[in-house]
């Protein structure tokens, strides 16, 4: 920094450490909860030190609990479905958005603004609010119980198009002029110049959309009846939704932990590109 002020530096560290603790607290309690048995979880206050039932709970959640009867899908399959769903939504959104953003920024054509606004006003309307009519469309198209039904309707969102558009506007015009002088056509320019430049934006969007896809709950629940398409977030809901019995907090918490791991890994591993991409795009 500009000058040394030990007290301020100390204060900065103290604030940040407090922040880290606040951020970690609920997850710590979750982790602890997943190491106890059910009876312990129903006595106040819940423990703050680890117990010795972690492996037992893990076995229950992964193997026996959800999979005891043949009709419940194994957790591994639900994780895989979540992964397929998250990756498809993320890549699908990126693919269609980068193309349409390219058309809108780099081409002059009739109806350009109409198209732009048509895409743009869908920016933020959650699927929960329009679920009944959307369900009907998907059913009419025969896409119930398929990965297409799980993913395609959620790909319709303008966030990615908008961010790509913002990014393209910051790309210097000279690049295009130079490419034209070299005789590059629109697709050449897109593939050879624009796409490599967009790498960080793509990475940032991938993170955002992966998390969005992974965390979907209501949509997969409504459109699947075939258990081979269940996702992990639905699995957790199934464990919490015990109508007349007591919730098994220890197992629920463990499952929540499992469901949290993949998106957290994606965010932490891709952190650098994610931050860079977001900031570049926003500017």
């Amino acid at each position: 920094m500009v000058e040394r002020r030990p007290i301020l530096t100390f204060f900065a560290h103290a604030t940040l450490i407090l922040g880290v603790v606040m951020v970690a607290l609920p997850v710590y309690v979750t982790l602890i909860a997943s190491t106890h048995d059910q009876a312990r979880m129903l006595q106040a206050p819940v423990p703050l030190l680890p117990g010795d039932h972690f492996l037992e709970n893990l076995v229950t959640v992964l193997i026996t609990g959800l999979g005891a009867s043949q009709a419940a899908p194994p957790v591994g399959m639900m994780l895989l479905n979540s992964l397929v769903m998250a990756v498809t939504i993320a890549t699908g959104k990126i693919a269609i958005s980068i193309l349409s953003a390219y058309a809108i920024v780099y081409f002059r054509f009739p109806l350009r603004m109409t198209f732009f606004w048509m895409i743009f006003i869908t920016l933020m309307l959650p699927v929960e609010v329009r679920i009944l009519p959307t369900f009907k469309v998907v059913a009419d198209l025969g896409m119930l119980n398929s990965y297409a039904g799980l993913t395609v309707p959620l790909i319709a969102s303008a966030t990615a198009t908008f961010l790509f558009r913002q990014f393209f506007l910051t790309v210097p015009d000279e690049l295009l002029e130079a490419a034209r002088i070299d005789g590059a056509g629109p697709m050449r320019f897109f593939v050879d110049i624009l796409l490599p430049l967009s790498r960080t934006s793509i990475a940032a969007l991938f993170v955002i959309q992966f998390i969005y896809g992974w965390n979907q709950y209501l949509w997969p629940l409504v459109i699947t009846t075939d258990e081979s398409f269940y996702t992990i977030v639905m699995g957790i809901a199934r464990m919490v939704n015990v109508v007349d019995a007591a919730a098994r907090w220890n197992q629920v918490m463990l499952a929540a932990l499992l469901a949290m791991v993949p998106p957290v890994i994606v965010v932490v591993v891709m952190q650098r590109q994610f931050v860079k991409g977001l900031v570049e795009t926003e500017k």
Partner: protein
Amino acid sequence: MSLRLTLLAAAAAMALAAPARAQTEIQWWHAMGGQLGEALNALAEGFNKSQTEFKVNAVYKGTYTETMTGAIAAFRARQQPHMVQVFEVGTATMMAAKGAIKPVHELMAEAKEPFNPKDYLGAVAGYYSTPDGKLLSFPFNSSTPVFYWNKSAFQKAGLDPEKPPRTWPEVAEAAKKVLASGAAQCGFSTQWQTWIMIENFGAWHNVPFATKGNGFGGMDIELRIADPLRVKHIQQMADWQKDKIFVYGGREGRSNAKFTTGECAMFLGSSGSAGGFEQAMKEVKFGIAMMPFWPDAAGAPQNSIIGGATLWVMAGKPAAEYRGVAKFLTYLSSPAVQAKWHQETGYVPITYSSAELSKQQGFYAKNPGRDVAVAQLTNKAPTENSKGLRIGNFVQIRDVMDEELELVWSGKKTAQQALDEAQKRGNELLRNFERANK
């Protein structure tokens, strides 16, 4: 020539495969998570193993509301399942949708399945029958509120652990002793406050919930929940809060932990919770008894009414598939299957024969108190006020009652104000329902 040969060969292959032809699949959507879901899957599997013609596919569709709305969305897109599990408050909505459902009595008659409505407990079947006694939906998981008490806490407080209070004044007395001795920090709490303290309270004391026999006689009804007895009861509970005789623990089943942790010595809850409590409380013993009543109310105790869910058969499927549905319902009501479901889950046995079978198997001797629910449901022959409830927009009306009761518990309203307001708002919802379903 060769094409024809191939076709012939294919035809032959198909003919050969005919004996093992694909089973007719029956879709069954349900809302049972956790252990109950496993017990339910076992039922479907049992049926699938018992015959080869049909295959019941049990599909979990989320909570009760999510399941019901999912089925409605599916019906609107003509993708409905054969059977859907609907909670009791959805009954009026399903009933009003005449073109969307297939009444169970009709289904059984068309499929010529043996079906004896007389074997079903009156309090259970009555809730889901037309006024002339024809069963509309198939009672599946039914429960009724019962009184739980913590025997260890009673012992510590110097009370007889085997003698539960029978009336509300006795409950208050017991609570005072428990609190004074420090055996627990709260007297009693309750689950599902509207179901227990408003709806079942009415049936148990033989006072109406709504006009026209609680809605059995038509849609043009009005709520009658602000009657003097209920007002007195709710006000009493609010007053009891000051001394912690009563502590509110949240809507639906959120208060369960108040009892399982030993914070409250007494509890009003669904009979279906007994199994879960046993698991959670391990060595701490508790007892199950009938709900308390006000001794000065004429006619109390009457009989309690049920909660839980039934299976509705949806319209628009081929007759051959309905035959499979009928066969499955017959399977579900067989005494052995019913008794197993009842014993595993704590839900009420829905037929007299399965209750009898459970008794013969010595289940009640081993699990004292598990027969209280049936005894309470059949305590007296049901009256107009205790047959059940058929209320349109019931989900919203329950929400309204929940909200108003919470205003009483937090001291913002008196019982009279809150129940008057709940009645007024509820009646508006009833009018909306009447309009939308004409």
